[in-house]
């Protein structure tokens, strides 16, 4: 079976005054249909650039991405816009329109795509239900918590029936408990609608919680790729070990903090 998504030899160079900087060098990987695929790395490792090359928010310097054997890099601007409805993306910042209520926020991309207003709103309601906030349809974004805002952003993406969902540090602005709830929602969406999910994160906990496989990125290179279980059990590279270690440190810190709180 052909892979759902194939990235082939992706390279991205930035030209700056001090010369050319390589943000991605020769990255290839495959993601299977229905998989939850993690891309982890420290900040500056190139993971945001990588995910932006998938929906061409950034144009790779060379290499290409195939989604269901369609070469994304050969699409015209118009075809690309069509294809982007098939590739949802959520961000660390929720990017909701503050002057519109939740329902209109979800319905707007549909209306822009030419769906009739009434139909768009019905669909929006349906997906607000799916993300667990049907009661917030008439609220404004400023009245919502961070987790609820991200749910709206997810509903907005789902409304265009995507086959792929890209999450760029989607839980980084949220507290641990909300993060778990959002990750649970993503897993639920993945199963219920069969949407393939690619998650960009710097947190091993996120990978551990939700991903099937994970790729480790360091200085623009893909240094290790494995199932989450294998990576946790037998990390092969320094980069992977370091990322696991950071997480252990965090846990220890949390524990010591708890102890301190208890002691005081």
């Amino acid at each position, binding site marked *: 079976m052909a892979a759902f998504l194939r990235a082939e030899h992706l390279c991205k160079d930035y030209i700056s005054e001090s010369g050319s900087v390589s943000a991605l060098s020769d990255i290839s990987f495959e993601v299977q249909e229905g998989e939850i695929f993690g891309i982890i790395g420290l900040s500056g490792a190139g993971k945001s650039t990588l995910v932006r090359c998938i929906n061409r*928010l950034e144009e790779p310097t060379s290499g290409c991405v195939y989604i269901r054997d369609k070469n994304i890099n050969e699409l015209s601007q118009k075809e690309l816009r069509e294809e982007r409805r098939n590739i949802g993306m959520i961000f660390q910042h929720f990017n909701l329109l503050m002057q519109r209520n939740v329902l209109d926020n979800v319905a707007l991309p549909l209306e822009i795509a030419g769906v009739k207003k009434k139909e768009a709103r019905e669909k929006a309601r349906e997906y607000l239900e799916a993300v667990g906030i049907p009661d917030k349809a008439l609220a404004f974004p400023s009245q919502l918590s961070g987790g609820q805002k991200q749910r709206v952003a997810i509903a907005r993406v789902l409304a265009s029936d995507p086959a792929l969902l890209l999450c760029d540090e989607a839980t980084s602005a949220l507290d641990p408990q909300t993060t778990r709830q959002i990750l649970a929602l993503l897993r639920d969406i993945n199963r219920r609608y069969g949407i393939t999910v690619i998650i960009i994160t710097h947190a091993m906990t996120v990978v551990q919680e939700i991903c099937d496989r994970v790729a480790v990125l360091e200085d623009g290179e893909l240094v290790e790729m494995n199932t989450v279980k294998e990576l946790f059990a037998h990390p092969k590279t320094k980069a992977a070990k370091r990322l696991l270690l950071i997480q252990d440190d965090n846990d220890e810190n949390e524990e010591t903090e708890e102890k301190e709180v208890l002691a005081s």
Partner: protein
Amino acid sequence: MWGIEVIFKGKNLIRLLGGLGTALEISLIAVAISIPIGIILGILMAGRNPVIKAILRVYLDFVRIMPQLVLLFLVFFGTTKVWGWDLSGEVSAVIVFSMWGAAEMSDLVRGALNAIPQHQYESAQSLGFTPLQTKIYIVIPQCVRRLIPLSINLITRMVKTTSLVLMIGVVEVLKVAQQIIEANRMSAPNAAFGVYLFVFALYFAVCFVLSIAARKLEKKWS
């Protein structure tokens, strides 16, 4: 008391209001010219062309650093000396205030555009918005909200600063006030205080209304 009674003698009150009318006329024409030009210049300043940006930057700094009075003299007297133009005081004033307003407005527009973070453009693109739709639905509504209070403040500053145009012979409210004080020097030697107090009240009435409107809008949209 304080010479205020002088205001109500003869046609003085009507003359003062007429002077205020001249001041408002100059500032409103300048506002009508400078805001659209300022918006266009601001969009160019937020754009990518480095040559255009540098030129506009120099223009903005020039107009900002120069005292408005110097600009008025430059346009009113300078153009006559150099090119032999015979501009009236009013026309010179409108030119100067339009130049100044456009420069200030362009800086406000540039700021409002740059305040929209990159991830909003990315988000819109990833939802399948065209560049035009991104501007209509996302950029412009946010910029307008940010700009309306700021531009009302700019208008207030322009109205106030028109008091300088008496220096190039335009008979606006302050000039009329001076004339009234001069004419009543013998009968009411203390008139200066009362008349200027009244001028203050006139400017206050206009600018305070604008300033309150700006504050209300700012509160409503923050």
